């Protein structure tokens, strides 16, 4: 039904805008979206799932590195943070990236407490983002199922 589709599309649009406004996403995400086309219709979903897999892996590495009863290898933690920063900035995960920047400094300062806390924040943040993006994809699916096309949201 057109009205239904229109409503869904409006909902979708607002949702996306809110994600940007709340700082979950940034321009890089827009770029990512622009790379999705008929040739690779699931590009964004694919990249994001790779990203979240990376998050799980990296957070796990960092948790293990910080869990040492002996000396903590901050370099190792830092290396993982660096990688997370790279991938989060590439997908447009703004908050995660922001946390990584702080995290890096904490690693360099070898601030154990700070690192542990920051890691927890990163963990929460990427999971939150994952949930939100999942909602976004669900909305897209609903729109398509309702016969509509997913609108291009213009972020300004």
């Amino acid at each position, binding site marked *: 039904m057109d009205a239904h589709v229109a409503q869904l599309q409006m909902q979708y649009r607002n949702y996306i805008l809110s994600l940007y406004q709340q700082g979950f996403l940034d321009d890089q995400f827009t770029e990512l979206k622009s790379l999705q086309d008929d040739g690779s219709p699931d590009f964004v979903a694919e990249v994001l799932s790779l990203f979240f897999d990376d998050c799980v892996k990296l957070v796990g590495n960092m948790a293990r590195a910080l869990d040492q009863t002996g000396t903590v290898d901050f370099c190792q933690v830092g290396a993982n943070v*660096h990688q997370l920063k790279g991938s989060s900035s590439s997908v447009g995960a703004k908050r995660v990236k922001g946390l990584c920047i702080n995290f890096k400094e904490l690693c360099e300062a070898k601030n154990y407490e700070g690192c542990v806390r920051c890691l927890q924040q990163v963990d929460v943040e990427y999971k939150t983002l994952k949930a939100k993006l999942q909602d976004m994809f669900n909305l897209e699916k609903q729109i398509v199922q309702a016969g509509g096309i997913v609108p291009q949201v213009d972020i300004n």
Partner: protein
Amino acid sequence: MTVEQDCVALDQFPVGMRVLAVDDDQTCLRILESLLHRCQYHVTTTNQAQKALELLRENKNKFDLVISDVDMPDMDGFKLLELVGLEMDLPVIMLSAHSDPKYVMKGVTHGACDYLLKPVRIEELKNIWQHVVRSRFDKNRGSNNGDKKDGSGNNEGVANSDPNNGRANRKRKDQYNEDEDEERDDNDDPSSQKKPRVVWTVELHKKFVAAVNQLGFEKAMPKKILDLMNVEKLTRENVASHLQKFRLYLKRISGNQQAIMANSDLHFLQMSNGLDGFHHRPIPVGSGQFHGGAAAAGMRPFSPNGILGRLNTPSGIGGVRNNLSSPSSGMFLQNPTDLGKFHHVSSLPLNHIDGGNILQGLPMPLEFDQLQTNNNKSIIAGNSMAFPSFPTQQSSLPNNNNHLVLEGHPQASPSAFPGHQINKRLEHWSNAVSSSSSTLPPAQNSNSIIIGHQFDVSPLPHSKPDSLEWNTQNASSSYSIPFFYYDSSQMRQSGNYGPTTDAMLSSNPKEGFIVGQQKLQSGFMGAEAGSLDDIVNSTMKQEQSQGDLSEGDLGYGGFSSLRTCL
């Protein structure tokens, strides 16, 4: 790649350019792949550096360009960069989330033709094809004789990142064809046929430096340089290899400051002597430039004539032929110390009228005929004023060599610079001195960059104008110093970096040169940045410890010699 292959590739270029992307981060790799596809390149990806090397070794002609992340678990991205540059002579672009300039510097000095920061944007990738074009272009130019007839202008145009490169590509293709033909035909350029060794005399080198300066280091392409130099029987190839050596030298210097410092002078001399390049230039060892006078005297013990003479010989610099390991470093290299570098730096500013400010303190080797310009005088005068203490310091310098270097080098410096930078500076200096051309200012820029930087750092009273000039290019000031210490042995080895260098040079002269400079700077400055400043300061204030002073003195000494060159 043969010309034919090039032509074929060029037909659709950059569409279909074959890129190998390496990144252990699967997210980034996937995005990169997609971005590259969007640019219509042909993409191969791998998340392991080893695999990438295997792919490359399997068939060297399979790829046009490599993009690699810096931080990878199985191999350092810089290492991969070097290997690719050396073995395959392909342009390599580095990718990293590190925006720290020292990483960028490292990338450039290791031969990367570009350094991109994550997140990578498609706009940046749209222009990477220029590196491939430039690389091939320079290679062809290097291999072809310096026929001025081919549309050199076209070449330059092609190198520009002009997306509408259909025409440009065609031109390039034509040029390649033209080059090929000319190569086979009897050129009216005799040197093209046999490529007789070109001896990079001081004068020749001066012209070279002047031309490079005039063009700006980044933009200095062999063809243009050749045109500017307007020297009969000089081929583009000669210029290209000279330029390459220059850059290579810079690169080496940055990487081997320590080693170079220790051995460079002699090495260079040896190297340079072997080189057919620069001719021995009489080194005005006793150059009274040194206001320090006393210092100069002190320097003598080094038998500057013997060593300096060699050092100053253009062969060092002119090592274009053999290596960049031109003994130019010798000029200043008497002391393979930072000071030497310092010298370098200082010398540059001297040339500039403005630069005189910085170098004010530095004794200008008046003996240098080049210096015999008003600039010199003003500089020298300024120097003496600025660095009244200099002479004293000089004498206090334990490094007699420095003095020697300073004095003797002025003349030799222009040619003796092993590094391009040095040469450039010399050029500047020479230019400035001789007031022969207005190229000085631009040249200064290139040179000044090297030197200027350092000076900027130092709280020299006069600093400003010079620093501007010096800093034109970048804080390459540190570079200037490395020059001196160019280790000939290293230079020899630099041959290994030939491809890399080529890549560097071809893809982005600026990168090579400047980067190297930066690297030097960072390397040097990093380690000794403080020292440089200290040196300057110390010379100024004579507050530094002996060590510093010596460095400083040397630096000044070097400068003075440089100055003379200037």
